[in-house]
Structure formats: structure tokens, C-alpha cells
């Protein structure tokens, strides 16, 4: 211990770390170019305070904002066989997985949790687009089945936030088979008479749209989300013409009868509470930010950290 370690080194470190700070403190909205202070942005659930552009939000951040007091418990998902096809393109699939895990700090592309919203017990599942494009492989299939089973076991509604480029090519046919598998999960909910609400977020495309994301009792989307089966580029190449403005965006789908509602992220929680309580035949909810509910007796709580906004 001397003045170098106590005084000089911290000073040097602070000089270097200070240089990196501004990049994380301010975020530029891609739509309107406004510089947004990171705390302001995360308080507004990653929605631009100037133009209402909805930026990506991680499942954990979403759940923290969704559940009463930000408290939720992770629902365990059965681990599938890793790299079942020993798939390799320019990179090996396990290497792509590791990179995605490192970048997101999550194990896979879907998070399942139980908790309460407006004192209404629910199961929620959210897909993580930042994890390999949210792609649907065995794990995501298992997660949706686990979510449905947990909902049936506890007689709770399931609210699913979709976001994916489609099926995970690296799992080949097994990723395609998640279309029927997740449809079985939806069937379980319907048989048990439980509401299944899908919140389609940007982007929800391909096999995900053509299975569980389009089988909800209620379909709500965030504004301007891209929702489609075939992407705009594929269609333009096929029909060789420019697609109209706003094609395959949430508002367009609303006009074409594929969605019930388009709702801002900042108003989503209240709306979900209202709808689930009516479908579950419960009295109107008490409004406002509720404190955390009583801790669950049977399960341990997941660590809840207020993660800083990404990017």
C-alpha cells in the first residue's frame, strides 16, 4: 500500500473510464435523432420520449416493469439436447450460442416467469430478439410448453411477448417441429379454459408468426412492429415490385384484421391487467404502481436487478 495504489491508480482508471462514459449515457433515437439520457429512456421502457419509437427491450427489463414491484420468479425450462444436428455453417452452432450468451447474459432466447400484475397472478413468457434473433429452437419450444404447463397447473392466464426472426436454422427440422410443439402448448391452455394473450413486438416473423404468435385469444402489438410470415425483402424479390409504406407493420395488420389492438408499451401493463381480469372473471383491478406482493411460499425469488438500458 502506498500512494501509487491508493491515489495514482484510481485517478488513472477514472480518466480512462470517464472517456467511455458518454457513449452509454446518451442514446440516439434511430427514428427522430433525439439524444436521450439513458435513465430517461429506461424509465420510459425504451420508448423514445420525443417520437414514441419503440426500441428493443430485454425480457428481464420488460418483466421488471410488468410485474408488481418488479418481482417475478423464473419458471424452469427443461434443457434440450445441445446442438442436436452438429450444425456448422461458417461458424459452429455452439460457438454462436456462446457468443449470444455472453452478449446477452441470458441462457437462451426466451424467459418464462410467474408473478402478479395488478394483483392478478399470471405466467409470462418473453422472447429475446437480441439472442440469435430470438430464434425458435428446441429451448424456445420447451419454454412455451413449460409456460403453458405452469399456467394450467396454477390456473393462470399466459401472456406471451413474441419477438423473433423465425425458426432457428441451426436446429434444422427440429426448429421447424417447434411449430406443432408450441401449438400443442396453446391447445393445453385452450382446453383448460385459460386466456392466452399474445403481445407481438418488433419483429415477429416466419415460423413464430405461423404458430403460437397467431393463435392467441387476444393479439396486441406494439406500434410499428414488423409482423409477417415472409419478410418484405423476400416478397419484393418474388413479385418484383415495391411494397407500400407501412406494409406488414402493426397498424397495417390491425387494418387487415390480424390484430385486436395496437398499444404503446407504456400503456401495455394497464391494458393487460384490464383484459386478463375480465377474461378471468375477476373484479376491476386497483390501479397504480403496486408494491411487491407477499413473497411466494413455495419458490425462491429470482434476483431482480435493475439492468441499465442496452445500447
Amino acid at each position: 500500500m502506498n500512494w501509487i495504489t491508493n491515489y495514482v491508480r484510481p485517478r488513472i482508471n477514472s480518466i480512462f473510464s470517464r472517456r467511455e462514459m458518454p457513449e452509454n449515457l446518451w442514446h440516439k433515437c434511430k427514428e427522430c435523432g433525439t439524444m436521450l439520457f439513458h435513465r430517461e429512456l429506461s424509465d420510459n421502457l425504451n420508448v423514445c420520449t420525443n417520437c414514441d419509437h419503440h426500441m428493443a427491450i430485454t425480457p428481464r427489463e420488460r418483466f421488471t416493469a410488468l410485474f408488481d414491484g418488479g418481482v417475478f420468479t423464473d419458471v424452469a425450462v427443461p434443457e434440450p439436447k445441445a446442438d442436436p444436428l452438429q450444425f456448422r455453417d461458417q461458424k459452429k452452432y455452439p460457438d454462436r450460442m456462446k457468443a449470444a450468451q455472453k452478449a446477452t447474459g441470458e441462457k437462451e432466447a426466451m424467459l418464462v416467469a410467474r408473478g402478479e400484475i395488478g394483483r392478478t397472478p399470471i405466467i409470462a413468457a418473453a422472447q429475446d430478439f437480441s439472442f440469435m434473433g430470438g430464434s425458435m429452437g428446441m429451448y424456445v419450444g420447451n419454454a412455451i410448453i413449460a409456460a403453458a404447463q405452469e399456467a394450467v397447473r396454477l390456473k393462470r392466464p399466459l401472456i406471451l411477448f413474441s419477438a423473433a426472426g423465425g425458426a432457428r436454422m441451426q436446429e434444422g427440422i427440429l426448429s421447424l417441429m417447434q411449430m406443432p410443439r408450441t401449438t400443442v402448448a396453446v391447445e393445453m391452455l385452450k382446453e383448460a379454459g385459460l386466456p392466452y394473450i399474445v403481445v407481438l413486438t418488433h419483429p415477429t416473423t416466419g415460423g413464430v408468426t405461423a404458430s403460437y404468435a397467431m393463435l392467441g385469444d387476444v393479439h396486441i402489438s406494439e406500434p410499428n412492429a414488423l409482423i409477417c410470415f415472409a419478410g418484405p425483402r423476400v416478397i419484393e424479390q418474388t413479385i418484383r415490385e415495391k411494397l407500400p409504406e407501412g406494409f406488414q407493420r402493426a397498424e397495417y395488420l390491425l387494418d387487415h384484421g390480424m390484430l385486436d389492438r395496437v398499444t404503446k408499451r407504456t400503456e401495455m401493463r394497464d391494458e393487460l391487467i384490464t383484459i386478463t381480469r375480465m377474461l378471468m372473471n375477476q373484479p376491476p383491478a386497483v390501479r397504480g404502481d403496486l408494491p411487491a406482493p407477499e413473497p411466494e411460499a413455495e419458490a425462491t425469488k429470482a434476483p431482480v436487478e435493475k439492468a441499465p438500458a442496452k445500447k
Partner: protein
Amino acid sequence: MTQYLDFEKPLAEIEGKAEELRALARANEEMDIADEAAALDAKAAVMLSDLYKDLTPWRKCQVARHPDRPHCKDYIQTLFSEYTPLAGDRNFADDHSVMGGLARFNDQPVMVIGHEKGSDTKSRIERNFGMARPEGYRKAIRLMDMAGRFGLPVITLVDTPGAYPGKGAEERGQSEAIARSTEMCLRIGVPLVSVIIGEGGSGGAVAFATANRVAMLEHSVYSVISPEGCASILWKDAEKMREAAEALRLTAQDLHKLGVADRIISEPHGGAHRDRTATIEGVGRAIGDMLKDLTGKDRDALIKDRRQKFLDLGNKGLAA
């Protein structure tokens, strides 16, 4: 006239030579070419069986897409009697890329539904190359629902490059139509058997093939994405389709190992298109066997069997 695939070129040369010799002999009666022609035929036969013995995944894709391969229409004509096509989705249109209706299979009334690609330019355009729009899936949903209510087994024949990526198809809810079709497959309380006769292209195939039993023809393929599509996304080069076909494990043999296909129906030497009758008969036998497997099961057992089949998928990996 046989249409040769690119890897069959050496074979085309030999068969061409034999044909030339025969043409010469027909023009000139004194010429004796029997020995030479027979030698060429024998050489061609060896070459054919060598070529098809170990087809690479990409070559299998080519065979699966061969224009002379028997299509849905051919199977329905041969294997079913009293075929009565039923048209329309009752909402918007009749999709000609999906054919279906009531028919008898070995005298038993059934509902048969399949993708039809067409066999010449005119019919291919009319059939949209077997790429269904939402109306096609909605017609299938209607027919499956009807079959369920009247206790008729459903037989689906899958042969599609995929669902049609068009503007109208998207506007009218392509994804929703596919999702509902898969859902209907899982709901009906009657036996549902499916045969992949050519290309099982992604969601468009799943919508019909979520069945109690799935059979695949020996050189058919079933995949989450076309090798070309996969190559252009993961390799950033559509020309890498050979590598992509390899990696995707889309052959009947790999899918059988993974438990996606319950059985493989062997094809005649040199592929289905070289002996259409034998292929169609083989598919007929497989459909008969699969239906027999399911007789005696009641509504709930059939639904449970189908769900469990898909829930269990993925437990088997592929050995290195």
C-alpha cells in the same frame, strides 16, 4: 423424353448414344446393333445405381424437385376411387395449389388433401408451383374439420417449396392460416397420416404434416428452409446450397433417425420419376399400413397420440 439432372449428365450421354444406335438401326434394317446397345444399357444401369446409391443431400433436393416426379394429382388418380374434389375456403377464393376432397381409399371413405405443383408450364402457373396462399390452408382446415366431424381418416400428401411469399398472401394472413391449419391437424379426432412425396418446404409443409404418422419417400426432403435460402442467410451466398443442404439434415434418412419421419418409402432405381407406377404403389402400401396402425384408436387416443409424438420430438439427436 427423360429430363436429366445436372449430376446425371454422364448417364444422359450413354443413354443418348444407345438411343442414337437404335434410331440408326430402325432406319437401316441390315445393321445389327443389339450387342453394342445392350452393352451401353448395362453401363447406364450400373451408372444409374451408382449415382443413386449415395445421393448427397443437395442431389436429393434436386431429385425431390424433379419435374417428372409423380405429383399429388397422380397419386389421387391412381390410389383413390370416387375422388370428389371440394373447393374453396368459403371466405375469399379457391386455391389451386392445394387439392383435396372426398375419396375412397381401399373402399374406405377418406378425406385426401395435398399440394399440387403442376406438370407443364400452364398447370404449374395455375397451381402456383405448389405454393399455397392462405386460402389453400383455409380450404384444408375446412376439409379436415369436416373429416373430423364425419369420422373420415385424413390423408395428406406434402409437396411444396413453401407457402407463397406474396403481398396478398400476407395481407390475408398467411401466418394465421398456417397456424390454424397446424392447430386443426392437432385437433381432429380421426386418424391423420401424411406422406412427404417431394419437397416438404417449411411452415407450408407443417400445416399438413402434423400427423399421427409421417412417411417420407426415399429421396424426398423436409426442411425448415430451402438450402438456397439457408445459404444466402448463413453463408451470405446462395451458391453454397450444397453445404447448407448438408448441414440442415433434410433427408428422409436423417429425419427418420430424428423421429420426425416414422417410415421411409423406398423409391425405384434412379428415383420416383423413373418408375412412377411403382412409386405410387409403394406410397399406397405405406398409407394402408399407417392407417391400419391407427385403427381401433378412439378420438381421444388419436389426439393424444399426435400431441405426444410432437412433444417427444427432439429427444433423439443425430450421432456423429
